[in-house]
């Protein structure tokens, strides 16, 4: 067989806010960088995201949260993946996240945090440097 490995990334929007523009822009940039992006739509619970990530065998999960609930939702996804034995799936996130929260989130296993104003190139670059097909 001829190997053709591609990065697979789940882009998800946990929580109650309906602002999915950012998530869609990121999804497009990742596609344009040659990645396969699974987009699951709005209002996902952490359990749903974990289940999708495992079924889709993704390399990383990107979470977009605008509602301010990142301190609960992001670690919940990391925890859920760990419980299912899928801690090798990386988690990154973006949204309106105060600077003070960033070290705490990193401590809880969110590997990359992108705040408003981050260019999509930077996100793509971060993934290419930190994530590889499992």
């Amino acid at each position, binding site marked *: *067989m001829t190997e053709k490995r591609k990065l697979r990334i789940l882009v998800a929007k946990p929580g109650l806010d309906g602002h999915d523009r950012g998530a869609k822009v990121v999804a497009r940039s990742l596609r344009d960088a040659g990645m396969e992006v699974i*987009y699951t739509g709005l209002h996902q619970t952490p359990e*749903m995201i974990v289940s999708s990530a495992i079924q889709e065998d993704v390399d990383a999960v990107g979470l977009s949260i605008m509602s301010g609930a990142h301190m609960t939702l992001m670690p919940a996804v990391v925890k859920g993946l760990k419980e299912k034995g899928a801690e090798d799936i990386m988690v990154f996130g973006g949204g309106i996240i105060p600077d003070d929260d960033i070290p705490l989130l990193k401590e809880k296993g969110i590997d990359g945090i992108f705040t408003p104003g981050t260019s999509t190139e930077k996100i793509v670059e971060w993934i290419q440097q930190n994530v590889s097909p499992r």
Partner: protein
Amino acid sequence: MDEAFIEKLLNRDVRAVARLLRWIDDGMEDARQTLKRLYRHTGKATVIGITGNPGAGKSTLTDQLIKRFRKRGLTVAVVAIDPSSPFSGGAILGDRIRMQDHSLDDGVFIRSFATRGHLGGLTNTTTDVVHALDAAGWDIILVETVGVGQDEVEVQRLAHTTLVVMTPGMGDEIQAIKAGILEIADVFVVNKSDRDGADRTVRELEQMLDLGRGAKPTLGEILHHGGKVDLSEQAEDKRIAPDKWVPRIIKTVALRGEGMDDLEKAMDEHMEEYKKACEDSSFVEARLKQEFVEIYRRTLLNRGWSYLMSEDHIKGIIKKMKDHSSDPYTLAEQAIEALGSKG
């Protein structure tokens, strides 16, 4: 091969199956070795193909079908295929959005695939994916094709029952639809039938079917092709379906679940007819032949390709073409012979 991994696969372990599907998708050797072990466990699942134009409502219909099968206590795996970008090679796979109600149900497994350049509505390895899911023990496998609408005839080779989903208001476009897509349908679903023109679409379909009747080659004609094993691409795509079946036309509004009883009934009836057709061993053999030819071609191509790429064989070939010391026809023959002697 890791016995524990095989054991997990056969027991429908989601992580293991998800992993194997990734190996398959990425063309890894481990996938092939695993599939060799799994093949004898296949043949139990019912495979349903869902094809049709973009926006016809394939994913919403799939969602409804999942509900129906779950009510009957059957487990369901969905293979949802979306196109890869021909420019970047990337893809956005969004079919799950319409199936989120099932994301916490252990009896439902949904996997998105990108075509990665493959034409025909499926991916290069959908056959393998279906084998894996079948062996793992899912009762129903729903294969939702890309949805470009013209040449997605491949799915009928894989599926026991093929649904072609359309919407009203296509008007004369139905006439323009290539014969292929009409011929592959076991059941036509006229979705969004609360819109104007649904009855007209149904009538037009009926007319098309009437015109087409009789032109369909019988199984005997397909099989006996001069007693030769036909390895051409056409042979691979030829439709092998129950002779007696007359395609049904069902109106639905999938978003609201309307018409689903009728659809379920039509699908059941077709499956019965399919099982009857399987009593004829030549029918089963013809389907197996198609399956083999597809895998054979892929294996040949892969082996040929890895030979060309190994030890820079391709460079030597190009050099000989460049200085005209040989010709591409001879070189191609030589490369294939070298392949054979390598065992």
